[in-house]
Every structure is written in structure tokens, then in C-alpha cells.
């Protein structure tokens, strides 16, 4: 067993100076080749990068728990963590995302009904209506992220939960505050202060909505959850945490998926022409785009016991991070892993963009359907869609979320060069 933890200076530099946050793939390739299980001193985390070891870690939910990672991260604020009581309290609770079986099983069962393949397919017409409404309003130049994908995904998840139109304005900002706090290599005090405020407002909104649905139930997920709080199936804390994460998971990742798929297609003209010819190819294009630009790049686990991964000694209580974005580009698993190929055959070889095992993305069917309808409609209505002339891809700085800062597109007659 390997008990030493040699540091790789170039990797630590890339983590510390933000290179990994914007351009992760080179560093993950280097880790797969040189240190497949790597203790980063800067992150105070084990990084697990090869496909088979990522899989192995995800398939041991008891040994590598979903509970504890966030608390470890917050604890790195030191004594100052006590300035953020809501933040600390929130992440010490066991909600859907940070629980293990049997709690996780109970919570997932409490919210899963509207996310099943069967339920989601019944939303087809509603989603199509939202897509058409948004596309009716776009001009000759628009940003796919903020003018199309985000309003679409925010409205779909809000409809599903039953968050009223007037209460939707802030939660994308709160989501961003949360993702930014946990997406930096070390917790930043200023981000913690912003997140503290966001969580207070978010929880106040949900408490108010649970009370309203308790008094007058509707046909929505918040009413269903409110009823389960009443009968003691879930606690208020569990319900709050779980709904926060459904709201984040319901829009942030799908927004990225829509934009990344378009980006991949528009930068590969032959494949763009192919989907215009055969829109059925979009399904494969979406899967390939989320393999290549995996929206949630990493899982967050903590070891519950002393153990080993591939001969490396892991101590109980240490953070262990299996990296989906790396597994999905592992040449041991995928031929030409850095190439976008919408005809890639996934039938026998899954990608792990939605994770694997107990915490496999609850919203995967919804994400796939929204992306499919959104992209198919865009393609059909705007066959001359193209990247804006001045577009340079810039990715949001985050260790956890892979998303373009913006994706400006143009439709209609080409504009004269400026």
C-alpha cells in the first residue's frame, strides 16, 4: 500500500492559479497518466480521474459517503465559519444530495414521482409551449445561455415544483451563489457571506410556499412534499434542502447542456449539417456533448473508514472526489476521447455525465427531454443559426460546473463585418 503523498508542482499550480477551473481537461489528462489517485495539498482532497476508479468509488456509497464533504469544505473557513450560521446549519442536514441509504432512499422516494420517464413525457407539450414562446421573442442576435436555455429550464423546473411566477426571479442567482462558493479551490469568505444571505432568503421562500400548499394543496411537487412533512415522512429541514437542490439541479446543468451541445455542433459544420438533415441525430449529439463537456464535473464524497483506492491509503474523514469530466474522456474507455462525434455508440459503454449508482441524476429524463425539444425547435426554426463573429469560448471559472459564460448566436442575413 502506498502511504506517501507526493505533490506534483505543476498540478498544484494549475489548481491554485485557476487554470483547472477554466480549462480542466489538460490537467485531468495529466493526472490520469501520472497520478490516477492524487492527494492535492491545495484542495485537501483525493482526486480520482480514471474511468474505472471513478466507477469503483461511486459504487461504494457506504465507504464513500455523500455526507460530510460540504462540512469539510466549510470547516476550512476556520473560526470564521461561525459567522455563517445558516450556511453551516444547512449543510449539516441530510437532504437528498448529501445523504446515504436508507435516508437517501426515503427522500428520493418522496420526490421522485414527477421525474420518472413516464411523468416527464407528459410534459412534452408544456415544454414545447415554453420553447416556442421564448423563440418568438429573440432577435437577430441572442445569447443561448441567458436568453433561451436558462429561462426555459427555470420555468420548467418551477412549473414542476409549483414555484409561482413572481417567486422565480431570484433563485437562479442564489444557485449561482451556492455553486460559486463550492466551486472554488478553497472557500472564500466573501462568497460565504453572499451565500449565507442567499440561503436565508431561499429558505424563507420555501417555508412560505410549504405553508401555502399545506393550507391549499395544488397538483405540484411542493404540495406533495408539504403533505409528507405533515405526516412525518420527511422533516422540514430535509424538505428545504431537497427542494433547494432540485431547483439548482433543475436548471443550471440543463442550461449548460443546451449551450454546450450547440457549441459542439456549430464548431463541427459537417455534424451540424447532419443534424439539420436528420434531427433524430440530436439525441446522440446531446449525449456526446455532455460526455465531452460534462456539466457536473465532479462528485463529492468523504471516506467513512480507512481504506484504499488502487493501492493508495485513504484515511477516514478525508474528502474523495471522483471526477466525471475525466472519466468521460478516459482513452481506456472511449476511442478518440477528445473528439466530438455525435454518432458515437453509447449502447454498451455508458458515460457518467449523470453519475452512476445510488445518486444517479434524478432529473436525467427531464434534462434530456428539455434539451431535445429546445434544440430540435431551434434547429427547425432557425436553419441559418451561426456563432456570432466575435465569439470566443470562455468557460465559467468553477471546479464543479462546466458552462460557457455566454454563447452568442446570430440568425437572419449575415451582418457585414464591423
Amino acid at each position: 500500500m502506498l502511504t506517501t503523498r507526493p505533490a506534483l508542482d505543476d498540478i498544484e499550480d494549475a489548481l491554485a492559479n485557476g487554470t483547472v477551473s477554466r480549462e480542466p481537461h489538460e490537467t485531468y489528462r495529466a493526472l490520469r497518466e501520472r497520478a490516477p489517485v492524487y492527494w492535492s495539498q491545495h484542495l485537501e482532497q483525493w482526486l480520482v480521474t480514471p474511468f474505472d476508479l471513478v466507477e469503483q468509488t461511486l459504487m461504494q456509497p457506504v465507504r464513500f459517503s455523500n455526507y460530510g464533504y460540504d462540512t469539510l469544505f466549510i470547516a476550512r473557513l476556520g473560526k470564521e465559519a461561525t459567522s455563517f450560521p445558516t450556511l453551516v446549519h444547512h449543510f449539516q442536514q441530510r437532504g437528498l444530495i448529501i445523504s446515504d441509504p436508507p435516508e437517501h432512499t426515503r427522500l428520493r422516494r418522496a420526490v421522485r414521482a414527477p421525474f420518472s420517464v413516464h411523468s416527464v413525457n407528459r410534459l412534452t407539450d408544456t415544454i414545447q409551449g415554453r420553447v416556442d414562446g421564448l423563440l418568438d421573442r429573440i432577435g437577430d442576435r441572442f445569447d443561448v445561455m441567458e436568453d433561451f436555455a436558462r429561462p426555459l429550464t427555470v420555468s420548467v423546473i418551477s412549473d414542476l415544483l409549483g414555484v409561482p411566477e413572481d417567486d422565480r426571479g431570484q433563485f437562479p442567482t442564489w444557485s449561482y451563489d451556492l455553486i460559486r462558493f463550492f466551486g472554488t479551490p478553497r472557500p472564500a469568505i466573501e462568497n460565504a457571506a453572499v451565500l449565507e444571505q442567499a440561503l436565508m432568503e431561499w429558505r424563507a421562500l420555501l417555508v412560505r410556499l410549504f405553508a401555502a400548499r399545506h393550507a391549499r394543496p395544488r397538483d405540484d411537487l411542493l404540495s406533495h412534499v408539504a403533505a409528507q412533512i405533515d405526516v412525518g415522512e420527511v422533516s422540514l429541514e430535509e424538505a428545504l434542502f431537497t427542494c433547494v437542490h432540485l431547483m439548482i439541479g433543475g436548471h443550471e446543468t440543463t442550461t449548460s447542456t443546451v449551450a454546450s451541445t450547440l457549441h459542439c455542433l456549430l464548431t463541427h459544420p459537417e455534424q451540424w449539417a447532419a443534424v439539420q438533415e436528420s434531427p433524430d441525430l440530436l439525441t446522440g449529439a446531446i449525449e456526446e456533448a455532455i460526455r465531452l463537456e460534462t456539466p457536473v464535473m465532479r462528485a463529492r464524497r468523504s471516506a467513512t473508514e480507512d481504506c484504499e483506492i488502487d493501492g493508495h491509503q485513504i484515511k477516514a474523514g478525508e474528502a474523495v472526489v471522483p471526477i466525471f469530466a475525466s472519466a468521460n474522456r478516459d482513452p481506456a474507455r472511449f476511442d478518440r476521447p477528445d473528439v466530438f462525434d455525435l454518432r458515437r455508440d453509447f449502447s454498451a459503454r455508458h458515460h457518467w455525465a449523470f453519475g452512476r449508482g445510488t445518486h444517479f441524476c434524478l432529473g436525467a429524463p427531464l434534462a434530456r427531454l428539455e434539451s431535445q425539444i429546445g434544440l430540435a425547435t431551434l434547429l427547425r426554426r432557425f436553419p441559418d443559426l451561426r456563432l456570432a463573429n466575435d465569439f470566443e469560448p470562455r468557460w465559467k471559472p468553477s471546479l464543479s460546473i462546466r458552462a460557457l459564460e455566454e454563447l452568442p448566436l446570430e440568425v437572419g442575413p449575415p451582418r457585414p463585418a464591423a
Partner: protein
Amino acid sequence: MTTAPQPPETWVVEVSADCVSSGQCIMTAPDLFILDEDGFSRPVRDRVGLDRTEDLRQAVDGCPVGAIRTARG
């Protein structure tokens, strides 16, 4: 004279290659589904009695990728 035994009324159950090992089916009906050596789900028995229809329905609905197929047979 004897009558031929009637074939039992059953569900034929399959788990497709779409399985992602979420384990939802096993938590719903631990006697009907099991993980194979690669961690993917498969039915314990290919045929399941109609008395387990509700459990099967929950397993089908609970699968996040719709990998469980059932047919009368």
C-alpha cells in the same frame, strides 16, 4: 381424462443495457432485482407473478432511465 396444466399468469421482466446502477429497483423490490458482478441490475427471476404487479410498477416508475421492461407472458 386430465386437462393440461394452465401456463401461469406472469410478468416477463427485463432490465436493458440502459441501467446505471441507481439501485432504485432493488430498494423498491429487493427480492425481484439484484446487482450483477458489474453492478448493473438484473431480475432475480425472468418471470414474476401478477401478485407483484404493484411492486413492479413502482420499480418501473422509479428507474431514472426507464431501463425496466415488463410484458405479460
